[in-house]
């Protein structure tokens, strides 16, 4: 049992070490790679240790859901309300505190090798530290405002890391796209925060989300906008907050940034897809689940908010799976699979399957991190083969300017374009990179939901079971979601098999692939660690009445459900065991994998041979081009806005406002000109005349001054004579 004070203190300290590491790297040790590695690894490991201590303490704490452990300080006093910020841990937070620092630490270790030859390695590790610190801060935040602070900070980190190869147009475009797309969601979230704050005067989670009175107050109050349509404040706030999730967790229609985000180095993709960014969105959604739930109660109660969430999730799940089928880039397939899997989680929340969503998020984080790091390992290996072939030393092209080359990875800019990420250039890697292959296949199986021995199976099955239970009781949303998710899951298994087959099986389809080599331990150890969790993490939440496994685990079965269940005011009822969804899950996995194996593994692709998917024609083109979302958004939103921006100044500021001013100026100028002419000819004329008269007189008098003494004397005498005459004849007379 860990004392509460220790937990309270540690909570504040959890996000600090990586953030400090960022500061130290940025300001101090960025000249030394060694020190950078040391600083960043130390930072994340301290956080990991602190987090796990907190998790242990939290697991033992009673009533964790209602009474999160934490402490807060006064931060912002305005008007009569005071906003407190603090750090706290509850069951949901503890779950994340288990996963996030572990995944981060593993990715850090991986990066020290993967990015080692990059000239800006230190900057990379710095950003990565800040990224991890922000995510940890987000998890321990006890209020929505601090959560938003870290949320945005993460947005900034992802922007910087996606655009890490900033000299490359595709990279910086992807970074701007990621920042702006998520910012749309962030603006909605900000409005949600503002609305919540305006209504409740607090943003503390515990004050709002486990406070029945507060929740009822929100559910009974009509929304400030659209309130007349019977929407409650609770629904509206919930939907605005969901806007943040849509952006951050790449849900339809704001999913477009995530596939492009793989322009960043591969460890960044792993960070974004597993440990940080996209998890944060789901985390927020889970946090506010009580609000969604409450919105269904009361006189204004409606399921609209949850239905929207569920539909968005279902659409995203299917869309992501479809597009993933037609991609060749190894990372892009994974990116779309992430979108699809996130759709699963969001759909689960929409159905009210809170624990299932959290469970899937947890398992997904591990197997997706595994897959991304595995793909990075593959790319690294193929690159190595490529460089080996073309004679240039792998680390030797560290251009100090760093603009043309970035240590070799992920670089599409160099012609002739050999793309080490294109699966058509791979094949047969199973022999050359055995450990990578093994772990990648395990991760792939978890993604496909291979029964019983992978974590992915358990979590996906949980979602499907919830959906099926709803369908059985006749809820339309659950029925739709169940069918859609089944299709999506089948597709998932199919494209996973396709990816595995294209990458690892058959003959090498390029010289580079033929010369690929296995990577050093810093890169393979993380794979092994993650593979362990990808396989066994499922056992923390197996239904108690599941045949064989349930009794086997005894009291420890469905542990996560009990633990997370504390978070909810009304506990989820345990579903009775039903064989149909389990059969469906198993069937789906085998169907998808089998189909994939039939098409790809049975007759592995030869070099130059076209992919069977391409035979689908226009459907293929549609999917290959990602359903034309980018083109659509560009035409409908970006271009018109850009047009406004480009022409606004010329039309409004210069054209209208300044023209009006110009007219005013001209009128004023005309009046002034009138005065000027009056001045010139009347006022100035009169004074000029006076002046000239005196001037003339002066000139005439000047003639008198001859300089001749005798003349002066004569003049004096004459004047004296005149005076005398005056005196004598006029004055006297």
């Amino acid at each position: 049992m860990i004392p509460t004070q220790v937990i309270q203190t540690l909570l504040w300290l959890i996000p600090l070490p990586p953030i400090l590491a960022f500061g130290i790297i940025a300001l101090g040790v960025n000249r030394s790679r060694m020190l950078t590695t040391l600083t960043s690894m130390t930072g994340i490991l301290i956080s990991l240790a602190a987090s796990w201590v907190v998790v242990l303490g939290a697991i033992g704490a009673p009533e964790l859901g209602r009474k999160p452990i934490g402490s807060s300080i006064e931060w912002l006093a305005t008007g009569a309300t005071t906003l407190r910020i603090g750090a706290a841990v509850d069951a949901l937070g503890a779950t994340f505190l288990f996963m996030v620092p572990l995944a981060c630490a593993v990715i850090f270790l991986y990066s020290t090798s993967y990015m080692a030859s990059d000239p800006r390695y230190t900057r990379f590790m710095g950003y990565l530290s800040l990224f991890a610190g922000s995510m940890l801060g987000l998890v321990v935040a006890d209020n929505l405002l601090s959560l938003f602070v870290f949320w945005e900070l993460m947005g900034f980190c992802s922007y910087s890391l996606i655009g890490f190869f900033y000299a490359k147009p595709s990279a910086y475009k992807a970074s701007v796209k990621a920042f702006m797309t998520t910012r749309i969601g962030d603006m909605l979230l900000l409005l949600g925060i503002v609305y919540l704050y305006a209504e409740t005067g607090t943003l503390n989670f515990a004050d709002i989300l486990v406070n029945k009175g507060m929740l009822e107050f929100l559910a009974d109050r009509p929304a400030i906008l659209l309130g007349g349509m019977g929407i409650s404040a609770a629904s509206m706030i919930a939907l605005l907050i969901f806007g943040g999730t849509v952006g951050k967790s790449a849900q339809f229609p704001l999913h477009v940034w995530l596939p492009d985000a793989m322009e960043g180095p591969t460890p960044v993709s792993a960070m974004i897809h597993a440990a940080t960014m996209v998890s944060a969105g789901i985390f927020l959604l889970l946090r506010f689940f009580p609000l969604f739930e409450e919105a269904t109660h009361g006189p204004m109660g409606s399921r609209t908010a949850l239905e929207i969430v569920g539909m968005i999730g279902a659409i995203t799940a299917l869309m992501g799976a479809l597009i993933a089928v037609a991609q060749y880039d190894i990372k892009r397939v994974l990116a779309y699979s992430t979108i699809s899997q996130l759709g699963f989680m969001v759909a689960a929340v929409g159905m009210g399957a809170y624990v299932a969503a959290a469970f899937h998020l947890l398992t997904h984080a591990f197997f997706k991190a595994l897959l991304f790091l595995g793909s990075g390992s593959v790319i690294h290996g193929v690159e190595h083969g490529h460089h080996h072939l073309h004679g240039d030393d792998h680390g030797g092209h560290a251009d100090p300017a760093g603009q043309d080359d970035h240590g070799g990875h992920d670089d599409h800019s160099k012609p002739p374009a050999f793309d080490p990420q294109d699966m058509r250039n791979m094949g047969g890697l199973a022999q050359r990179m055995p450990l990578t292959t093994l772990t990648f296949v395990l991760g792939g199986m978890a993604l496909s939901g291979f029964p019983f021995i992978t974590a992915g199976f358990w979590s996906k099955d949980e979602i499907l079971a919830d959906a099926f239970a709803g369908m059985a009781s006749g809820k339309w949303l659950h029925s739709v979601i169940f069918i859609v998710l089944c299709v999506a899951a089948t597709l998932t298994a199919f494209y996973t098999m396709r990816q595995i087959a294209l990458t690892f099986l058959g003959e090498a389809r390029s010289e580079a692939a033929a010369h690929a080599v296995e990577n050093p331990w810093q890169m393979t150890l993380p794979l092994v660690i993650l593979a362990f969790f990808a396989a066994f993490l499922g056992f923390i939440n197996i239904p108690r009445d599941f045949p064989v496994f349930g009794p086997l685990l005894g009291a420890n079965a469905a542990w996560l459900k009990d633990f997370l269940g504390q978070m909810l005011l009304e506990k989820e009822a345990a579903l009775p065991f039903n064989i149909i969804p389990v059969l469906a899950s198993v069937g789906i996995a085998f169907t998808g994998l089998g189909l994939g194996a039939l098409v790809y593994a049975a007759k592995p692709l030869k070099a130059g041979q076209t992919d069977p998917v391409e035979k689908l024609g226009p459907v293929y083109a549609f999917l290959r081009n990602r359903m034309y979302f980018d083109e659509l958004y560009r035409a409908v939103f970006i271009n018109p806005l850009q047009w406004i921006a480009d022409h606004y100044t010329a039309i409004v500021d210069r054209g209208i406002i300044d023209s009006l001013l110009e007219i005013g100026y001209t009128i004023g100028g005309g009046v002034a000109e009138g005065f000027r002419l009056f001045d010139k000819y009347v006022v100035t004329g009169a004074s000029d005349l006076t002046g000239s008269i005196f001037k003339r007189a002066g000139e005439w008098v000047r003639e008198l001054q001859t300089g001749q003494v005798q003349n002066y004397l004569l003049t004096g005498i004459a004047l004296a004579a005149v005076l005398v005459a005056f005196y004598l004849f006029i004055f006297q007379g």
Partner: protein
Amino acid sequence: MQNFILSAITFLPLVGMLLVLVTPGKHKGLIRWGSVAFSLLPFGLSIVLLVSAHFFPPQGIFLFEEKYAWFPQVNATYHMGVDGLSMPLVVLTTFLTPLALLISMSVEKDVKAYYALFMLLETAVIGAFVSLDLLLFFVFYELSLVPMYFLISLWGGANKRYASLKFILYTMFASLGMLLAIQVIGLASGSFDLPYLFSEAGRPFVGKNTVNMLVGNGMWQAIAFGAFSLAFALKIPIWPLHTWLPDAHTEAPTGGSMMLAGILLKLGGYGFLRMVLPLFPDAAREFAPVLAVLAMLSIVLGAFAAWGQTDFKKLVAYSSVNHMGFVALGIAVAASAMGAAAAMPAEGAHKAAGYVGEALIESARIAGNGAVLQMITHGLSSAAMFAVVGIVYERAHTRDLNKLGGLWTIMPKYGAIMIFCAMGSVGLPGLSGFVSEFLVTRGAWGSSFTLLTVISMLGLLVTGIYILKAIQKVLHGPVGHEWEHHPPKDINWIEILGVAPLMVAMLLLGLLPSIVLNPINFSIAALIR
């Protein structure tokens, strides 16, 4: 109790100006560094002000008051004092001046006059902030235009004549009306003393303080309100009165832009909160929706305009319109609640949507806090951005965004600093811009302008676009051909010294906003009742 600290802060720069003027012009180094060192004196004093106000909480509303007879014939006094509205702005002014002087080290033309004008500018602006007498305020307010005019017209760029003329005509025109309004108020209340005018006995155009001359009292009130509002709206500037700003900024020297954006614009927002709201509470409440709509347009259109620029400096200049729009929005919300306490909601009103009574006042106070804080944070971030623009312009000799590019590779330190400042401007949480924007948004949402708030978010979105555009066009991409042979030097330590304090301040206020919000909140609560 009389003390001289405010007079000292106000007139120390003037002493500095005289010292600069008597220094022989050939000692450029002495003039530059001497000015910087000297301008630290008022800064130090203003910090003393802040700290002592923190430890010895105010008894009345105004602190450090000084009052002497000035023009007894018209009952004008030399009255100075600070409260939570003006004190942060005074500190901002004394803080920015040495930094602007540091950034101006590279000015070679007529150094002596340049630095002397800067000192004069500082005196004028501080004087305007600490004046508690309308006439005294007006004197300082007008005085601030003069050095700025010369800074633009003598040290400006290619189009300096047009820009400086536009600047001076625009602002002079607006302040003429304000002079008239001040005179009418003096006539009505028989005093120019602000605390007296705020009191029940002294409120102009109310009770016995009426003017009936040519036109009726109500008309005079409307004229005075309109004249004040016009002058300050133009200064903020609010759309569509903003077009002088981009021109003035683009042509002004870097230090001048820092002062203009960082401080001079704040006179507008300050004037609204200090004079318009308390002197004309009813008119302000009635016209609040107009102001709110214009503020929303400033936010949205300012952002779009900034997005469309290809001149780096103009982009930053338009970003001021965008950011100051939040100040205007906050003021509009504050104005909308003036006197709202009279209309208390009936029992059980929370069942209805909308915010009235106490809830509205609370929102208005939060928005008012946000508006003042936004002035401070915009002062920091815009000054930092202008410094960043100036630094790259000095090296690349162009501000055309399409010609810059790839500079991060050549100037890594500069790149990091620019990204930090840009993020401050975009309002990244953790930096000060976020707190103020959050407060304004929160206040505006909880007032009658909810829909406008939603539309304003579009502006906030575009803020991100134009800032990222600037970063991308300057830093990202391949190194341009021009730079390959003559790569620009990275930022030097003097420039770092000029920008780093701004960065520290942004971070500090982002993490601990309460250090300035506490006094602000005190005064805002007194204002909005």
